[in-house]
């Protein structure tokens, strides 16, 4: 935590140093800087920057594994938007984002506030909540696939003990996406919790004490102190949750294979199917670009919204 306090000082220190140094030193520094940067930049350009540009390029081409690539303008986009399966995938993915976004942010914050208190056992509970983070998606799918089983799953067993009829979670198109959302929240809410925890621990204690002395109750302190100070963390958590929501794939692939009745068929599975099972690289790249545009629009809208609040 102490390292944080000195961080702005470090930044301005770097600026100060550059003012003091002469031109010769500075060109030496430029050379040194690029020497240090070069291994990462080489990897970044080769495996991040160029593939991004290539993806956009391929989306305008007919590009099968065999044969020469050919520029075909927007044909790939026309093709995927005429494909009912792609539209279903967009709708399903949007539904998944809708089901997960608010619980992931609200629950992430609630867990962080609960476990930020100075009470015995919070460290243990934090570790328990964080444990799913280290579980791989295939395992999450295998485990929750069974927990949600209609006949032998624990979820239905405990629901029936409180009088709820067994639900065919993963076999019923109405319940398959909520089941995936619950699984995902269990699996990944911990990342949001940790980000909120880090932000909460940075809010000074005196602020709360002063407000308490002025007669502010817990709710007022939450609304007027905690929430405003959490805005940067809130913005980050919301953006990450939404982007990751649009990128959902593994859970759906392992638990339901996109079914039943394509009710959990998502955009990334469409990319996978188109590129690596039908070997149509152009339309798959176009679907990838659409995914990028969707996440960009959502990120920008969310940033605007955060500023407005």
């Amino acid at each position, binding site marked *: 935590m102490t390292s944080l306090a000195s961080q702005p000082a470090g930044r301005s220190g770097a600026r100060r140093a550059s003012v003091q140094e002469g031109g010769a030193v500075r060109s030496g520094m430029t050379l040194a800087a690029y020497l240090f940067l070069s291994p990462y930049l080489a990897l970044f350009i080769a495996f991040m920057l160029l593939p991004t540009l290539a993806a956009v390029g391929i989306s305008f081409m007919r590009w099968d594994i065999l044969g020469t690539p050919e520029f075909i303008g927007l044909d790939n986009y026309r093709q995927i938007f005429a494909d009912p399966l792609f539209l279903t995938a967009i709708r399903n993915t949007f539904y998944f984002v809708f089901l997960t976004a608010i619980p992931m942010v609200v629950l992430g914050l609630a867990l962080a506030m609960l476990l930020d208190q100075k009470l015995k056992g919070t460290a243990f509970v934090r570790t328990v909540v964080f444990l799913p983070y280290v579980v791989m998606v295939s395992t999450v799918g295998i485990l929750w696939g069974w927990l949600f089983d209609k006949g032998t799953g624990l979820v239905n067993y405990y629901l029936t003990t409180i009088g709820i009829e067994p639900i065919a979670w993963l076999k019923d198109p109405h319940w398959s996406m909520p089941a995936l959302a619950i699984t995902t929240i269990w699996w990944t809410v911990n990342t949001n919790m940790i980000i909120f925890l880090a932000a909460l621990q*940075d809010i000074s204690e005196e602020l709360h004490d002063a407000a308490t002395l002025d007669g502010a109750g817990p709710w007022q302190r939450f609304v007027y102190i905690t929430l405003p100070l959490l805005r940067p963390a809130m913005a980050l958590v919301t953006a990450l949750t939404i982007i990751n929501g649009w990128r959902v794939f593994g859970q759906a692939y392992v638990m339901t294979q996109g079914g039943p009745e394509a009710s959990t068929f998502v955009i990334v599975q469409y990319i996978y199917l188109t590129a690596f099972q039908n070997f149509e690289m152009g339309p798959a790249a176009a679907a990838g670009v659409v995914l990028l545009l969707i996440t960009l629009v959502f990120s920008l809208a969310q940033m605007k919204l955060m500023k407005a609040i």
Partner: protein
Amino acid sequence: MQDQRSNRAGKSLGGRTLAYVLMIVVTALWGAPILWMLVTSIKPESEIYAYPPAWIPDAPTLEAYGALFQRFPMLTWFRNSAVVGILTTVLTLAVDALAAYPLARMQFPGRRVIMGVIFATFLLPYELLFVPLFLGLNSYGLVDSVFSLTVPASANAFGVFLLTQFFQAVPRELEDAAIMDGCGRFGFFWRILLPLTKPGLATVAIFTFVASWNNFFWPLIATNSDETRTLPVGLATLVGGAGMSMKQSVLMASAVVATLPTAIFFLALQRHFVRGIAATGIKG
């Protein structure tokens, strides 16, 4: 870190009781699936579907683990995941730390642009890259190799971002003194900067290793033989088609085996990890 906190909600007895009730509920909801996985993996066949569900097996056995290792190339998948995870982590730490040093502590033309471009990739859905990456690697005959599973992954921007935050916090005077003493920039980087920022390096190591160990989509595309297949891809085949008749105890044993390395890695470095996250600059 925790000790500075006062009892915000827990001041009254009622508040504290409520907090503990909630903590028990949270522990049950998040812990039960993991516990169920462990318990089922050591159950004999006759107990797996016992009604009501039994949380303590009557006659614990390791036969599910035996069956798992006998019927599937678990050791090969495990070894592949370990090799890929370790190589990716070492490579990522090396290139990220080298890149973060000038970004955090030097002034040079292009710095802002480079940082902007690198950090913009945070918002990139990586799935977009898989088609061109696959085509590119395929044209060099590199698909289904350790290379395709390790090197592209180390271009990730997260480690650079996190280490930049850590490196900025190290006082300027230390660097000036070190360079004055003839230590050189690399000497300062290697002998002073890195040892001072161990929590940051540990956090990047955890994130990278866990991400690599659990990475699913890219290895699903980039591997097509058991020789290179990693655990997540191998395990996914247990539930599809061939695995439909698989006993739940064997599936849960696979889950335990797959989770153990990352769980141990995480628990061992957990202390650094929370400090590392706290230092990301994501604060109120």
